[in-house]
């Protein structure tokens, strides 16, 4: 059952992945580029997912649609 804790768990996972990317990015002239790109990507993706998830945890409005079987009586 999804709850608020999912966010914390995923956050921990992202932190772990970022540390991994920091340590294991290919050495050479482009190490900074690899590090920045991978960590920033992970952070941005997490932020976007987290905000969407958090907004749907306890939404203040529920989806409302027209009743298709309105006016049709059941046999």
């Amino acid at each position, binding site marked *: 059952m999804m709850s608020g804790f999912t966010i914390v768990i995923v956050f921990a996972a992202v932190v772990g992945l970022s540390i991994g990317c920091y340590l294991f990015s290919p050495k*050479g002239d482009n190490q900074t580029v690899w590090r920045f790109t991978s960590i920033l990507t992970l952070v941005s993706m997490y932020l*976007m997912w987290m*905000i969407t998830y958090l907004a749907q*945890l*306890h939404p203040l409005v529920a*989806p409302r649609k027209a009743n298709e079987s309105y006016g049709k009586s059941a046999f």
Partner: protein
Amino acid sequence: MPYTTLFRSEEVAAIQLYFPAEVARSTVSALGEIGCVQFRDLNADTSAFQRAFVKDVRRVEEIERQLRFFGKQIEQAQIPFKGIDYDSLSAQAPSIAEIDELADRARHYEARLNSLNESHETLQKRFVELIELRYVLRETDTFFHQAHAQSGEIRQSVDSDDGSNLLDSNADVEHSAAASRFPDSGSLAVMNIGFVAGVVPRARMAAMERILWRILRGNLYMNQVAIDEAINDPITNEPVDKNIFIIFAHGREILSKVRKISESLGATLYAVDEDSRQRQTQLAEVNSRIGDIMSVLHNTRQTAHSELSYLAQNLQAWMVSVRKERAIFQTMNLFSYDEHQHCLIAEGWCPRLDLDKVHRTLRDAAIHSNSSQSSIMNEIGTLKDPPTFNRTNKFTQAFQSIMDAYGIATYREVNPGLVAIVTFPFLFAIMFGDLGHGFFLFLAALYLVLNEKQLKRAKYGEIFDMAFYGRYIMLLMGIYSMYTGLIYNDIFSKSMNLFGSRWTFPEGSDAETLSGVQIGTYPIGLDPAWEEADNGLLFTNSLKMKLSVVIGVIHMTFSLCLSLVNYRFFRSRLDIVANFIPGMLFLCSIFVYLIVCILYKWSVDWSMTDAQPPSLLNMLIYMFLSPGTVDEPLYAGQAQIQIVLLLIALVCVPWMLLMKPLVLRREANKARAAGYEGIAVAEQHGRISTSANDHEEEGVGAIIAEEIHGEEDFDFGETMIHQIIHTIEFCLNCVSHTASYLRLWALSLAHNQLSKVLWDMTLSNAFGMSGAVGVIVLFMAFAMWLILTISVLVVMEGTSAMLHSLRLHWVEAASKHFQATGHAFTPFTFSAVIDDL
């Protein structure tokens, strides 16, 4: 320090190079090949004509002009160029002997081509005249037959013979000569009728007739016939329609008038004999001469063609050599010449990591030219600002250039281009978020990236060049757009149900509208139930607006932290305490507080509490308007905490405004009291270093005598104004830029709605039809849908989102940390020469 980093620009050292005169040229060309050194202009106060190597530059430019002339001739003759083999371009620049040989050859070929072209023109003119003469000879046959037939009707001249003697005696001669030739039919000469035959352009025909009629008062007989085929005018090479005419008139004066008038109207006159036998011989002669000229023309063309083909083989390579040579001499013009040691002295900049490469190049160049002396490189100290150099590769180059377009970073400040590699495409993706459209973008970019070797040299126009230059940006934009499309749950305006919707609607209800009941949370992205909901936009707008504000404030906070990195690197503790800390506190106490509230409000289950979920917008407004009273608290103790935050923000404003100028003034006063003057920063044009032999020269005096700019004393007024502007800008921009990030919501809403409308108007209608009509309509509707998707939704919306993302980087992010007072590192390199072809 073996590795470079894109995080800040590289260290650039000021160097001084001594080139012995005989190896100077080849060393400079070797330096041009490696492209690591930027040379300063040491002769800035001399004009272009007074520089040392002006003659060489002129000579090389002359050769270039001749090569360009060849190029145009080759293009006119439509001979294909042999392209340059880029991989095998020689690393060594051409030697002096090669350039001399090239100059000779260019001169020789230019003379040849010019003479060939001239003779071709003359021959062409002759050819056209002969063709016209042939026509005239043919057509005047008919005229003469007609005229002779009618000559019997023409009355004899009744003028007595005791008119002018001169005329008569000549006429007698003609009469007798003509009479002998035309024993039976009356000759025209007998009747003193002369003729003028020629060719005139058809357009002038009517004008000529009118003018002649008027001037000669009708005393002429004119006959004309049109030439069927158009004749090429030799000068303009355009076909002109012409007519043949023959004019019969009495008397010599009239005939000379006729000749003058027709020549003035652009007619060409030809001498045609009256006697038909003579005409036949003339015709035969003309035909043979036409044949001769045609063969000569053909030969000339062949020769020219073969010479041009030979030139076309080598032209590109020669052009590259010549351009390199010119670049070398133009660079050498920047050096200063030391007469005592017969060497050229150059000053410039070189990245510290490339100093070894330059050393090696200097040594190798000396070895190659078999010289005993090699060039020397020294590092010198300088007060000037070094140029900013970021070592980019094909991936990072485009991202770096979009940030460089705003401004070149100050020497060694944090490079925003590195951060832009992710933030630019990601902010684009937030505005573009559609899995399907992102996939199209990704495919297009993938094609460009996988085929970059072939496409690099193709010339498809400027727009394609721009798209190709940004192929890696497009690739990342496409990938991130696919991710945000997944989160927005939007693929071509439809939602996917990957994990099962977490909203159930009650079955068997009699109500008019159904409301969903929540069971859990959709794991990744937006729940698909919102797509068909009537109030879907209500929820998604709220989500996207808050998403924009949260991402915006985080982006701005991140940029502000980059300014801290800058202050620590440049060791200015005052800036940290006086600029960074109050700025950060101001931003955090208001806007980070706002996003914390947003996140907190989302995490509370309001259905479990009795309280009404408060409006965050009102909360923020009333936090300022009526501090201390909170109508609908979001959390316990809110009023007190908000007062504290407000006080912190209020304190930050005068803190940021006053601390730095006052501290600087106190330090300046202390320094002045201790007796130190400010350091003058000299603006120097010539060499900033001197050598031991320079005593006699003006070198030493020049540095002192040149203009000295710079602030000697600390100007409190200016500093204060600067700080006032900074404070006002910072505080107002916090509010305005936070609101500006709402464009992330606005564009993504527009994109979503536009693609929904497109779907509803085309495919949705088509799916509603059935039968054969439905099939045809579906086919056409899909075509329209696809074309509009690609052109409007991907290309147009993509460009728009790209511009907005760029604006967010240039204004909102850069204003927090980017100083941008640097100048770019422009090394002397031949790569521009090659790309220019």
